[in-house]
């Protein structure tokens, strides 16, 4: 029967489709990117005010391959909403392991007058892939009033609900921190 190879091919295609990952929505770069950020996973200095924040994730491409060659740069404001233009506070190039995983520790960024929501900027590059410029937002942002599904559009720069990530509070009251997971999916060139 000639249907067996066709069925196998269909199954392979379906398998492939299951593995397909949707690219992370891009979001604009904003005005305060600074190149040559230091490589570190600890953006927070001892004694820094603000809610401690731990963000982790993994970098893939749309074929679901983990990208160990990815380079991630992040930058954000301090807890009061100020970018450091003089130095590299709250700016880093993040180490990525063999599985494309990354993590870093920071503080919850502040609000500032020209932006509605708290956010962290990302620039992700990897050989053979389109660079990704995006931003991460927090479902706990008071702007969303507990309903990011309905209210994410209150920040005119948030075009996609997917960029608003859940926030889990972990630790005891003395060491409480906000924990966020943000997967990054790059498109192939």
């Amino acid at each position, binding site marked *: 029967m000639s249907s067996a190879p066709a069925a196998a091919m269909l199954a392979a295609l379906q398998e492939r489709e299951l593995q397909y990952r949707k690219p992370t929505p891009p979001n604009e770069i904003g005005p*305060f990117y600074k*190149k040559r950020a230091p490589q570190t996973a600890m953006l927070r200095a001892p004694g820094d005010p603000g809610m401690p924040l731990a963000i982790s994730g993994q970098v893939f491409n749309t074929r679901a391959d983990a990208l160990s060659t990815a380079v991630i740069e992040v930058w954000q404001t301090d807890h009061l909403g100020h970018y450091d*233009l003089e130095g590299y506070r709250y700016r880093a190039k993040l180490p990525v392991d063999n599985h494309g995983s990354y993590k870093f520790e920071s503080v919850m960024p502040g609000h500032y007058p020209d932006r509605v929501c708290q956010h962290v900027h990302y620039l992700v590059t990897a050989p053979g892939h389109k660079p990704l410029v995006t931003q991460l937002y927090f479902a706990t942002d008071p702007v969303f009033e507990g309903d990011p599904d309905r209210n994410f559009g209150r920040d005119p720069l948030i075009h996609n609900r997917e960029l608003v990530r859940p926030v889990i509070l972990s630790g005891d009251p003395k060491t409480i921190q906000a924990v966020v997971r943000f997967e990054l999916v790059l498109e192939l060139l």
Partner: protein
Amino acid sequence: MKGARLLLPIVVLQAFLFGASAAKLDKTITVPPGAVVRFTAFSPKGDFIAGACQDGQVRLWTFPAAELRQAFNLQDQPVSSLAFSQDGTLLAVGGTRGAVKIFTIPAGKLKTELKTGQTVLALSLSPDKTLLAVAPQERPAQLWDLDVRRVITDLPAKFSGSLAVAFSPDGKWLASADADTTIRIYEATTGALRATTDDLLLETFAIAFSSDSKYVYAGGADKTVSEINLTNGKVLRAFPKQSYVVGDLHDSPDGKSLVAVYFDENSFKNPAPVLLWDTAAGSVRSTFSESGVTPNGGGYAKDGRALVTSSSGPSLQVWSFR
């Protein structure tokens, strides 16, 4: 009285130390309710002001008479950028959904229109008015042939797009200030890359060529105006750093000064100064700084005075200083 006598020497000393200049409020132009002017562009000869208004209109006033001559719009989208041609006979208007329309000045006739698909952050017309450089947000800048309304080439950065574009006065060069913090210098007619400036760490928001087409001035988040050699992209010198971010630059017709419009990094709405730089000395010739005034445009008048605009409710204010 004693206090007033003490105050006067302090003011004079401040003016001496910081080059503060007595600004003159030249004109107050009333705009219709709801038509607050968001930003402006002066024609290179200083005889027209174009203002992008909150009601979607671009209003064109003569200067110094301040007579309203035209009102344009992009119909379905707010205006995001304005640029006069170097002879002042064309005005390019870009919108938040990618439309670009080019109008004749002062007649106000639509000469051509094109679409880029993204918010137009910056525009520049070549001196012979046959080429247009467009910076669509988060996309590579584009070099357009206006005669056939076709993109000659994209001008890509490593990522994201360009924030400012400018043709040199001699028409040979095109510069882009890109979000990857690089300034790129291209051959104007082909878009072939000829030099790059990689020394700037932060994003540049404004570029302007010197009137002799030998240098590019760049300013941005580093709060510095840098002078760049066109042929090799090297930063030749950086003018003294200020407390504010550079948002706009205009070279004077005689090439001796540069108007730099600054903004407060914490909010574009906060008051900020405008500096008149002496380009030969690399020093501040004078400073425009008025209490409560947030500049939203700058340029030069026919007689060489530096001009600044600001909005106050339903009026556009035009200030001048030397």
